[in-house]
């Protein structure tokens, strides 16, 4: 038990500092660790947990809370969540002071510009892997594609899309 908890803490604390541009960027690595390296769950269970996290209010990153909970109960949930959040939070708070000072520095803009495509590539990787894990029928792929279009073209509250997804699922179409 302690072994699993320290493994969770170690994995997620490391990822906390690698999550450039936000938590979605480490989702592929979390999936790789949890499914492929440790074999704690299958890819489709991972997709289920992500769907649950997406359907509940709050930051999407709550999927790590569910992963921790599935692996080691309540202690696992707390360990995984805090391990993922605390290191990056402390680092960000420390850097916050310096960030103001370099507001107009040219290197700040250059670094931001250079890191942005990396963030984009990683977010699209997350989307790609989730699509693969969640969709196994043509209808499901269509639903994913329609979601992308609706979000890009409208300003609809995502809650409605999730509700629609649940309903469409209920009818057995996907």
């Amino acid at each position: 038990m302690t072994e699993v908890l320290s493994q969770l803490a170690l994995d997620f604390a490391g990822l906390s500092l690698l999550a450039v541009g936000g938590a979605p960027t480490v989702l592929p690595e979390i999936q790789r660790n949890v499914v492929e390296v440790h074999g704690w769950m299958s890819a489709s269970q991972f997709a289920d947990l992500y769907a649950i996290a997406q359907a509940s209010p709050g930051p999407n990153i709550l999927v790590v809370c569910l992963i921790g909970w599935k692996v080691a109960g309540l202690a696992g949930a707390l360990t995984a969540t805090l391990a993922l959040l605390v290191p990056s939070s402390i680092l960000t708070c420390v850097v916050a002071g310096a960030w103001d000072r370099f507001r107009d520095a040219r290197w700040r803009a250059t670094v931001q510009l250079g890191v942005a495509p990396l963030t984009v590539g990683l977010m699209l990787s997350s989307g790609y892997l989730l699509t693969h894990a969640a969709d196994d029928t043509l209808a499901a792929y269509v639903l994913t594609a329609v979601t992308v279009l609706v979000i890009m073209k409208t300003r609809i509250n995502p809650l409605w899309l999730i509700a629609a997804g649940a309903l469409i699922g209920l009818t057995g179409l996907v």
Partner: protein
Amino acid sequence: MTRPVPVSVAVITNETVTPTERELFTGFLRVALCGFGGVLYWVRRVAVEERRWLGEAEFVDVMSLCQFMPGPNTVNLAMVLGLRFHGVRGALAAFAGLMVAPFVIVLCLGVLYTSYGELPLVQSVLRGIGAVAAGMMLAMGLRMALVARIRNVLCVVAIVAFSAVALLRLPLLAVLLLLAPAGVALAWWWRRGEAA
């Protein structure tokens, strides 16, 4: 008889209001409970529009830091705003407001999933939500590609990152160690060409 200042007056004068620790907690609690799918939208709405803790330009600046730093953007944002108003106590109040209720709710859903997750009905609902959730993630990446001026030579970094992580399933640390310096170097080179 005293009357509260009408909201519209404060908006016109661009006044900002310094929140107490309690207000930081309740403000982020509201963000957490409203935030389905996209919490970031709600942080802006609550902190800038509804409660006027800070102005739009200030918010954009704080936000650019939080998007750039590692870790979940919203959690970073809560911590930095809390810190700014009340130091570590403020940061903890904002963090608790953002995380505690969602943590409990998602765990309750997790418990239900363990008991009923294998039911065909639950499986079908999760398949529908899963397909939508995947689409939301893809759209977020695409939207960011549009906003972040990913054009020309910087596209290569995005494509290589995608191939390495999504297709080849290489470890993230190695990918970052190679691509982060490469991205910054390319950005520097491109901006130099642009300036010349």
